[in-house]
Each structure stands twice: as structure tokens, then as C-alpha cells.
């Protein structure tokens, strides 16, 4: 039905992301494309505008620490039980990146607005918070359907990433990717102009052939390119596939306390594609 979009390597995959791109990444716990993140750093990408969907952790910390990031729109960046994200936090305090603090449902809603091709979408809540106070791209309007009196309502512009980049368990040779219940990955793929995916395995079966697998599949029509990346979420845990590499993460947190320690870590950890 279409040419395959499967490419040979994660380096080839991420070569499509130019400096300055608006790049959406999923949260650390549901498909963070760590192999692709290392490949991006390896090729020296600059000035990325990250959108975390809706939060992030190590993926963002590595990119920020490597100097690849100009801005981050996020609802939260943290290494979870390993504590705060050291390079992200340092960059915010030094003012070397711009942060646009958001709240999880606002990021989902903005992406869903892009998915539906509508210029904005309302959201309840948020009014009176400093999250709103510091977002000059958000507005409060009067609900035009309020039955009586004023009903102030937050409206959010569509979030239109140029690229979505995430890791999945399985893709097929046609470029369909299986996301299972992680529906936010479908929203990202629908909203983004280009979607790049790494997969633990690329199977010969057609994921679209049976409705059982199709129901959890983002079809190739949304997928610009796919590359295989075994242990592509390492050192993070990846769904039911493998646990986190706790020792590696503990070492990372120690190293990344300082810029120098982080640079050391980076040299060891991104120098080749065969990084696990």
C-alpha cells in the first residue's frame, strides 16, 4: 500500500531532525527514545525546542546537559525516585534554556487541538495559577456558551510539533508501530508533522492485518521513519520489556551534579551507536 519507511539505523533516523526543530518527547515511563536521544547528541544537534508529553526526565536532562536545547515546554522534569533532573535544573537556574511551565492536561489538550486541526482548545482549571500568569501564549476568554453570567475559561493554542520521537516495543516492516494502551503516543503522532520511531523489534507480520493488533497500532501513514533500537529506552525501564538500570542511573545522578561530571558521562555514553 505504501513504500516502507523503515531505515537502517537510529543515526539515519535522527538525521532528519534539524537544528532548531520543535520536538515532542514522551514521558520517561512510556517510550522515551533514549537510544535516539544519544544519537541526537552524538550528531551535535542544537537549539531544540522540546515539548515533553506531558513530562520528561532523563531524555530531557541529557539533551539539556549536552547543550542541544533552546527551550522546554513541560509539566515536569524529574528523574522520579532518583530525584530532580540535575542538568535541567541547573540550566533553568542559569537561564541558559527557556522553560515554559505547563500542566499535563494542557499539553495533551494542545496536542489534541493540533490533532483535530483546530487553532485552540478550552481547558478547565488553571485560572489563578502562576502557570497561567507566566504563559503569555495562553488566554482566558468568556465561555460563549455560559448559561448565565460570566464563565472565565482558559483557551490554549494548538501545539504543533515538527517532530515526535518515541520508542515502542514493536514495529512492522511496513512502518506501522504498536503502542498498545499508550494512546498519548498516537496523539503525538497525529499532532506532529513528522513522527520518528525506534522499536525494540521490527517484525515481518503486518500489524494492521488483524484488528487485535491494529487497535493498538499507529499506522504507517503517520510515521515518517522507523529504526530498530534494541534496548532503545535503556537505561530507563521500558514497560513490560526490561527494568531500569538502577546502577547506571545512580551513577548518572552522581556524575551530573556538575557540568564536568556530566561531560565525562556523556563522552562514555554517546560515543557510539552500540551504546548499551
Amino acid at each position, binding site marked *: 500500500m505504501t513504500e516502507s519507511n523503515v531505515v537502517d539505523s537510529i543515526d539515519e533516523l535522527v538525521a532528519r531532525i534539524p537544528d532548531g526543530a520543535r520536538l515532542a518527547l514522551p514521558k520517561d515511563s512510556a517510550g522515551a527514545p533514549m537510544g535516539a536521544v544519544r544519537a541526537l547528541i552524538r550528531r551535535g544537534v542544537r537549539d531544540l525546542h522540546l515539548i515533553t508529553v506531558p513530562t520528561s526526565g532523563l531524555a530531557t536532562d541529557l539533551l539539556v546537559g549536552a547543550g542541544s536545547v533552546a527551550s522546554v515546554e513541560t509539566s515536569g*522534569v524529574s528523574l522520579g525516585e532518583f530525584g530532580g533532573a540535575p542538568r535541567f535544573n541547573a540550566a533553568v537556574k542559569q537561564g541558559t534554556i527557556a522553560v515554559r511551565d505547563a*500542566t499535563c492536561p494542557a499539553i495533551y489538550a494542545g496536542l489534541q487541538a493540533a490533532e483535530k486541526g483546530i487553532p485552540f482548545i478550552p481547558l478547565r482549571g*488553571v485560572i489563578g495559577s502562576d502557570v497561567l500568569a507566566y504563559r503569555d501564549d495562553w488566554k482566558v476568554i468568556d465561555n460563549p456558551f455560559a448559561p448565565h453570567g460570566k464563565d*472565565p475559561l482558559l483557551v490554549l493554542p494548538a501545539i504543533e510539533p515538527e517532530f515526535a520521537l518515541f520508542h515502542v516495543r514493536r514495529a512492522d516492516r511496513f512502518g506501522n508501530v504498536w503502542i498498545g494502551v499508550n*494512546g498519548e503516543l498516537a*496523539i503525538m503522532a497525529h499532532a506532529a508533522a513528522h513522527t520518528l520511531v525506534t522499536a525494540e523489534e521490527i517484525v515481518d507480520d503486518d500489524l494492521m492485518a488483524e484488528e487485535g493488533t491494529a487497535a493498538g497500532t499507529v499506522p504507517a501513514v503517520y510515521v515518517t521513519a522507523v529504526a530498530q533500537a534494541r534496548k532503545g529506552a535503556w537505561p530507563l525501564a521500558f514497560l513490560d520489556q526490561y527494568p531500569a538500570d538502577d546502577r547506571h542511573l545512580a551513577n548518572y545522578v552522581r556524575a551530573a551534579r556538575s557540568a564536568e561530571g556530566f561531560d565525562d558521562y556523556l563522552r562514555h555514553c554517546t560515543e557510539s551507536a552500540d551504546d548499551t
Partner: protein
Amino acid sequence: MQCLPEELLIATIADLLLGCRTVAVGVSSPIPGSAALLARAQSSQPLRVELLESLHGNSFTRGSVELFDRAAQGRIDAFFLGGGQIDGLGNINLVGAGEYPAGSVRWPGSFGSSYLYFLVPRVILFREEHSRRVLVPRVDFVSAPGVSEPGVFRRGGPYALITSKAAFLFDAENCRFRLSSIHPGHTLEEVLDNTGFEFDYTAAPAETSSPSAATLATIRGSVAGEIAAAYPQFAARVFPRHQ
């Protein structure tokens, strides 16, 4: 009955979930998660628990966006929020201390708080550290406000605040916390000394009830077993005999 501080907190929070049909628990929340599981075990009517952090502990089949949509649909009765700072108006700060954005400390960010605090009827604030560093006169950044102007759509807000020293209930009418009980081993003076905001209290506050033997058995039994799937490190530390 002898119990761990965590067990006291679990039992105290579980009592606040009485009557709920669905309780959702966010990331990094082993004690609230355990409390929700305990409430479910003790509830006479069906009580659903959605553990966001757990691969198999929730019923979301369309992605995490479902938590927020369900909250808006009125399908979530209780949720838990924390805060690097919490003030006497119930404002919470998950973003950072000092001037925004490049303040003295950066915390992770507001997550879903700016929204769920409005949409979920019963939001329980939980923060173990009870200090003037955390419980401040006024938060430096409002991730989510405790109260709203008249006319602002709001279905929920702060219901209680639980710390390692005490339990407060939020009086929405007067926009103030009221001390409801002090945990065993702590004093009113200690609570006053370590709370940076004003709150209502009586001269002789109640002591937080310790969990009964039956409750403790449930915590150490089915609750410990289930919470371990989502929070193995927590379970190994608090319920080592269960492992």
C-alpha cells in the same frame, strides 16, 4: 498497637477516602497509593483505585490523558497532591523556591496539579516533611491555587493536609486549615513551631488514631502485596517481612 509512621499515615489517609467510588493516585505516591488500597479493602461498596505509576494498576486504555478526561467527566472522586511549598490558603508550589523562573531551587514542575485541584472533588495534600520550609506563609509560585474567585468553575480543591506530624482539614468557607489531629509522639507546640502559616486549632487537639490490629493486618497483608508491584523499593523498606 505498635505501628510504623508510614502505617499510621496510610490508615489516616484511608479514613479520608470514605465514600469515594474512584480514587486516583499519581506518580511517586506510595503512601497515598497504599492508603487507597486500604480504603478499597475496608470499603463496604465498590471502590476503584487507579494507580498511574503502575503498568497493571490502572484501567486506562487510551493513554494517560484519560486521567484528566475522567476527572473532568466526574469519574474521579479523590486525588493526592504534594508540594515543595504549601501555604495556608491551600496554594501549592511544585515549581521552585525563589523568584521564577531562575529561583534558588527548581522542583520538577506542576504536573497535573493546576487542573486536577479544580476538577477532583476531594484533593488530599500529602507531604511528610512538616517544616516552615514547606508550610510557608505564601508560596513563591502558585502551581495550583487552593481557592478561586467566585464565578470560576471549580468542582474540587483542598480537603485535607497530612504531614508526618499532624492532620488538617481545609475549611473551604473560611479558606483556612483546621488542625484535626496530631500524630502520636508529636505536640501542638511542635506543630505550631513548624508551621509557617496560620491555622485554626483547639487548645487540646485530638491525637490521630492509631490503626487497629485488623487494619494493620490488612496493610501488612494485601496492601503491602499490591503496592509492591508499583513501588518495590518502598515496599521492601516498609514491609520487609512481606517480601
